[in-house]
């Protein structure tokens, strides 16, 4: 016993120390520590020993086992990284993938647009989807008999004088009524128009509208803020163009276009040959709107703007059909 143990002890220590490959090390491990390894065989032979000697040898053998396990482990760590044995493992196998469910493009653009204005110092205000004619039209200077007020264009609620807001501008009126100027906030939310669904119409969509009012807020500031927005929202060099337009609640009114990035202004099918793409409507708040809200138009002035979020998402991501936004095809949602 004694002799056999000593032999295994010296031999194994030397061999483990001198091995130069992980593979050989593994062979040594099997040779000495494996189920049928030298040390286990030695333990089995203890049956032949004197009962008094058994615990002594048991302890010695187990101590050597632990020692060898430790040295093999540390030797393996030393060797790994040098001549690693790759075995038959195929690292090109696909792992189990967490498929990100995507970010809804409408929500994503809504948040991005909001973030840009918030970073420019704008607050946020919300209002109800079910509105009154007063907040949606009258206070915003829509004349009696204006086509937008027609049953053809606006959803009305049965058994009530309420309607579904056609823009988020009523929020501006609600805020201005409630607190004195100055104002600087946006109003994001859902809007409704009485359209049948097709590639460019949805009966419900999202808007972000904004208002900035102070003693000296001018058309130049309108341009400054919206130019800055366009530069941050659209990738690359963005060229804007402001042109006169008409809205009942602003005077002067404007529409902002950006130069078509596909044709650089020369005209192509993406911009229907115009060279520019319409982005949003804006203008200086009409004095009538201020009066309706109890704000003195001789003391305060400012601008308002509004944009359709689905439209912004279409431009940003190159989506050609509005219907994708409400169908919620998983393959659509996972792309963003």
């Amino acid at each position, binding site marked *: 016993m004694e002799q056999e143990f000593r032999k295994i002890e010296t031999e194994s220590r030397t061999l483990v120390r001198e091995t130069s490959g992980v593979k050989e090390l593994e062979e040594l491990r099997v040779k000495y520590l494996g189920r049928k390894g030298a040390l286990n065989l030695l333990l089995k032979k203890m049956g032949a020993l004197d009962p008094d000697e058994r615990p002594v040898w048991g302890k010695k053998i187990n101590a050597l086992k632990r020692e060898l396990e430790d040295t093999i482990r540390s030797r393996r760590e030393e060797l790994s990284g040098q001549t690693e044995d790759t075995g038959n493992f195929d690292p090109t196998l696909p792992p189990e993938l967490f*498929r*990100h*469910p*995507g970010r809804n493009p409408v*929500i994503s653009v809504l948040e991005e647009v909001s973030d840009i204005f918030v970073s*420019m*110092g*704008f*607050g*946020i*205000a919300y209002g*109800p*989807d*079910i509105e009154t004619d007063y907040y949606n039209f009258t206070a915003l200077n829509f*004349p*009696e008999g204006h*086509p937008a007020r027609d*049953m053809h264009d606006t*959803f*009305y*609620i*049965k*058994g009530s004088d*309420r309607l*579904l807001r056609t823009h988020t501008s009523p929020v501006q009126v609600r*805020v201005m009524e409630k607190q004195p100027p100055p*104002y*600087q*906030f946006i109003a994001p939310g859902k809007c409704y128009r*009485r359209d*049948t669904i097709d590639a460019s119409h*949805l*009966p*419900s969509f999202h808007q972000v509208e904004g208002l*900035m009012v*102070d003693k000296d807020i*001018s*058309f*130049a*500031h309108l*341009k*400054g*803020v919206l*130019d800055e927005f366009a530069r941050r929202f659209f990738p690359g060099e963005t060229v804007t163009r402001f*042109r*006169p*337009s*008409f809205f009942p609640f602003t*005077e*002067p009114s404007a529409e902002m276009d950006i130069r078509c990035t596909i044709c650089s202004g020369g005209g192509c099918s993406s911009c*229907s040959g*115009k060279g520019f793409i319409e982005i949003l409507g804006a203008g*200086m708040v009409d*004095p009538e709107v201020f009066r309706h809200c109890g704000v003195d138009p001789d003391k305060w*002035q400012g601008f308002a703007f509004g944009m359709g979020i689905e439209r912004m998402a279409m431009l940003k991501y190159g989506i050609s059909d509005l219907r994708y936004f*409400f169908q*919620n*095809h998983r*393959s659509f*949602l996972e792309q963003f």
Partner: protein
Amino acid sequence: MLLPVEWLREFVEFSAGEDELAQILTSRGLEVESVKKTPAGGVIEIELTPNRGDCASVLGVAREVAAHFGLPLLSPSSSYSETGPGAESRYGIRVEPSGICPIYHLKLIRDIKVGESPEWLKDRLSASGIRPLNSVVDVTNYVMLETGQPLHAFDASLIGGNTVEVRGGRDGESITVLDGSVHKLSPEDIVISCDGTPVALGGVTGGLDSAVKSSTGEILLEAAYFRSRSISATERRLGLKTEASYRFSRGVDPGGLLRALDRAAHLLAEISGGSPAPGVLSHDEFPEKETWVRVTLSDINSLLGTELKPDRVVNLLEALGFKTEGGRELSVRVPSYRRDDIRRGVDIIEEIARSLGYDKIPSRLPRSSVSSALARKPDPFTRAGEVLGAMGYSRCVTLPLCGSENCVSAGFDPGSLILIDNPVSVNMDALRPSLLPGLISTIKYNINQGVQTLKFFERGPVFINSGKEHSETRHLAFAAASDDFLEVKSGAVSILDALRQGYELEYPEESGVFKPGRYARVRVNGLTAGEMGIFGSGFLKAMGVPGRSLGGGYLALDKLDRSSASFARFSPWSPYPSVFRDISIVVEDSLTHSDIYDTIKSAGGRHLKRVRLSDVFTGKSLETGKKSMTYRLEFNSDERTLTSDEVEGYFGKVVEELKRACGASLRQ
């Protein structure tokens, strides 16, 4: 509106090409939709905003172009010689009530020989999108396109009674118009009538019976001024849009009627051999007063953010036909063709900005002045979306409109629906009372598209009619292809946990749209704040996905504590190790986890920190009607390391109580 560029060049001698012209018009608020190049020259299509009736003509657009280049605006020739007695010798006009038509002129032209118009005239009409008919009708259309004033020619021999009446339509009356369609009239429509019979729909189109024919020899040429609101109402009510109504509904120039008649008389004399009678027959009660508007230079520069000098402002306005007096304090006379649109100082400022060009106004960032009341607050519910996203749910946005019939058959209370008075379809005649139908429809669509991963959520408003009011509340809902109640429960409970929201769950028998026994209700602060479960077969059938196993739930976000997720406070955890004990018991099948959990919790003492169910087992090795449940109990103290004797004591109490209260036996 289509505009042949060569026609424009007749009145302004500019050299710019079509594309440059298009840019100029767009920059002045006359948005050019397209530029078509034809062998006869370019044709531009302009989309007019509703306030620019003054530009619904070649001359109107020419005025803008002339102002832009600083060129003179030329006038068309309108000379002719008059012969014979005036129209008043035979005809009269009656406007009743007088307010409905402020100006009504008729000009008599004799010796008309109706034929074909000359090529140049026909070409211009065709290029403008109007089909040539005969030399009389063509002239009225030509003059309308050129001046913006719609004209109408009546065959004088068909005017019975000799008095032309302008009045409201009468109930029961109808008229067959030029395109052959028949329209029932109402008192809001304006009718031109002779001998009690309508001969034209004022401001919109003529009647078929009084139309000019090849046999016509004498015509009455009408030029009227109708109020834009009344014409646009008739236009919409009858669904009848014409070139005339397009112009009247945007407002025509009340000062341009006679000029248009003269121009038409000139052309008719030239190409149809007509002999205009002297003068016109008139009804004119249009207020003569000129419109003057005051505006100060400082208002202009303050609103626009510019530094314009007085003479620059005056030049910009006068180029557009405004007359000005003063310098820093301006009085501006508005030309008749803009008097509908321009009444106030800001309207003048807009004209200045437009004439200057928006691109000449500087672009400047303001000082920010946000009020703290409106500063954006962090969204307390972002974690809900994060949890669902991590579970593989895609966020959708569905339409907030739904079909009431469908909702009712799916199990929603008809009284709680908010209905749309004028829906576009029966599938969208109500506001959604819940997000779940939209999500089920989304799953249905995705199934039909062959999509495998059927997990969706939405966050948005739902609408309930409580009888007293229409309430809008915000919900978060999710749905997935699943028949595993615990999977669904995991979604709802994980969200609540992530929001650090305290809640209780109830398991009522009445389960609404969900399957009985696979349903739970969330209670927060004593109120129902959500529901979850596997959807019932009736609901799924009504939603068009019969035979599918779908589950889901919703949370009413307004009922949750908003502060819980956004406001966290640090609390230290125990530095001492926990001691774990496992227990496997056999109990009656009818006993719930919730009963056992409560028993363990109340018997375990204050150091029992957590109880986790690790296994439920029913099977051959057990008696029928029994189940085995394994729990892992975690004991921990904040003050010291618990001794094993101590833990044995607590554990023993738990075992004892489980035997006593739950009839449990220990399983080895």
